């Protein structure tokens, strides 16, 4: 009832003179074309993009490290040790992580499944990163609980070097290819640095409700 009331009013008041059919065509075209608008200039070379990604992520108070496929477990263990954190991590059942950590986890204790808030460190695998602002894209799914990104005090994200993209607009065609047009994972998290608040006298404090630390492990591939 309210639905029809609102839509009727909008229909009457909207768009000077154009017919409904013309407007429907314009809307369908806009959604189909998914035009990219103004894209801020980014470095052309892949290496320069990676460097910029790391710089931007660090400017947002994340830390980064680059390693090889066989060095991921050690990189994680090193970082935990450096911050005096227990050598325990929680991950989803993500195959990519399993391939990188499986067997070679050394003295790391691995736990699997969603977090209930008692874990110190969660580890996720990113779908991609964007060098524009050092932003990580993490998707939810059967093997990727969203709680891992928010409940543990520390969040480690593994990102393949070749998945570092130039613009946010480069993310969406990937999702359309993977999930189908108009389809989405339940949750897409775009993450730029660790959680923070400036609500008390505009003073920046890290670790408001989400993780206090965000560490990005970039894997050469």
């Amino acid at each position: 009832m309210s639905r029809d009331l609102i839509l009727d009013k909008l229909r009457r008041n909207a768009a000077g003179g154009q017919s409904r059919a013309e407007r429907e065509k314009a809307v369908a075209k806009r959604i189909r074309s998914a035009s990219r608008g103004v894209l801020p200039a980014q470095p052309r070379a892949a290496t320069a993009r990676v460097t910029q990604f790391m710089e931007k992520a660090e400017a947002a108070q994340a830390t980064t490290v680059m390693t090889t496929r066989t060095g991921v477990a050690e990189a994680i263990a090193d970082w935990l040790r450096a911050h005096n954190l227990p050598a325990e991590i929680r991950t989803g059942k993500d195959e990519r992580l399993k391939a990188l950590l499986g067997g070679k986890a050394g003295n790391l204790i691995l736990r699997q499944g969603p977090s209930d808030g008692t874990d110190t460190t969660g580890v996720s695998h990113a779908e991609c990163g964007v060098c524009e602002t050092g932003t990580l894209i993490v998707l939810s799914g059967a093997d990727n609980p969203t709680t891992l990104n928010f409940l543990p005090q520390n969040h480690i994200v593994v990102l393949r070097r070749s998945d570092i993209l130039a613009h946010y607009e480069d993310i969406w065609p990937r999702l359309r290819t993977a999930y189908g047009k108009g389809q989405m994972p339940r949750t897409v998290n775009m993450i730029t640095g660790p959680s923070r608040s400036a609500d008390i006298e505009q003073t920046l404090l890290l670790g408001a409700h989400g993780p206090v630390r965000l560490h990005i492990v970039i894997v050469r591939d």
Partner: protein
Amino acid sequence: MEITTPQFKQNVTGALADRQLQRALSHVRGNFVGKRAAAAAALPEFEALRDEARNIKNHVLENLDIYLETFEKNVTRQGGKVHWAATASEARGHILDICRKVGARSATKGKSMISEEIGLNAFLEESGIRPVETDLGEYIIQLRGERPSHIIAPAVHVNADQVREDFRRVHTHLPPERPLEEPESLLAEARAILRDQFLSSDVGITGANFLVAETGTSVIVTNEGNGDLTQILPRVHIVIASLEKIVPTLEDMSQILRVLARSATGQEMSVYTTLSSGPKRKGDPDGPDEFHVVLLDNGRSDMIGTEFQDMLRCIRCGACMNHCPVYQAVGGHAYGWVYPGPMGSVLTPQFIGVEKGGNLPNASTFCGRCEEVCPMRIPLPKMMRHWREKEFERHLSPPAHRRNLKAWAWLAKRPGLYRLFTRLAARGLWVLGGAKRRTGFLPMAGAWTRHRDMPTPEGGTFLAQWKAGRHRTGQGTGGAS
């Protein structure tokens, strides 16, 4: 909800004399303005992106009916449900129904100005459901029984010592002698208390920065991560959003994201931009079982096709209030309802009526800074002028105000007389100013001179100086105007 907008003048007098408030407001001037300027300057495409953002929203507003239908179709396809609300009370009703159906006792909340607009917290409390604000700023003002004084920094009017007192007063289960001197300890205390609330909540309510028509996705932009914990932990996620939050595609959202954080806090990107589409999927280990979007109109459809349509481009970044000399001087509560600053001065008369809200569009010097920094290029001063015209047409402005305007119009239409009058006024002020060249006494303007001196004219009127040819040498610019 209590509306004190009609008492704007008294509110302002109180705000100017409030030392705690004045101390807190210095953070607005010191922080937001410089950070926004630096962020804008660091992105060469910033101005082009503002144009693009404006064009996207204009296109949406011209086709809002079709986009809303598309959005609804796609939410449904993803397994969610859209609830339409023509009025605030209808929106509250939808939310209560959803809460009752799952037997909710409490609801955690992400930051939402629409929730303030519909007075959701008081209503839920009356209905036996405890609303828990989880944004740190919102949590602080909920403890204080206040309303946000800023749309992105709700507790900007509060100082750390006040927060400390509030925490000691309310968190009585904690040892009274615990140290709370460092801001970090205040944050840690709030984090621990709210963590329990997140984990035990039945329903999570968030706002939305964008609704993506293409995919039926709702998007929130936050720094704390509270919105995310609000929506992934409880069984039910309710999004409360107004109609104009629609963008056509994920690409369009990306364009506007680039101007949003830069204009708001001066960040290049907020920490968490989260896209939610429907309830959790088969096999998902976490996420809500139900996903609801309550779409609020509350008078917005009446703005489409009018001189106020451009206002619906607003993305609630807060840049206009951060840069407003009036907001900087009096803060947000003086505006007397939900939305403060220049955007509030345009929206408030629309929502509560110009007879109650007409004070606000008058409280502007039309300095134009709000329009200059608005990422969506909303002509805010022009719209405030529209409200002034409406107020005048409907004979709502005070009699003295109308008399003075009429007298001025009468004078301005008689050039000879006007010149004589301004010449005499300039001379008179010059005498009053004396050697100091300023005066603290002006007939009929005592309220103005109570807070500052009036600089007095140094030479003749502008016209007289122009005639004398002094403009060629660039001298004598101090005429009365």
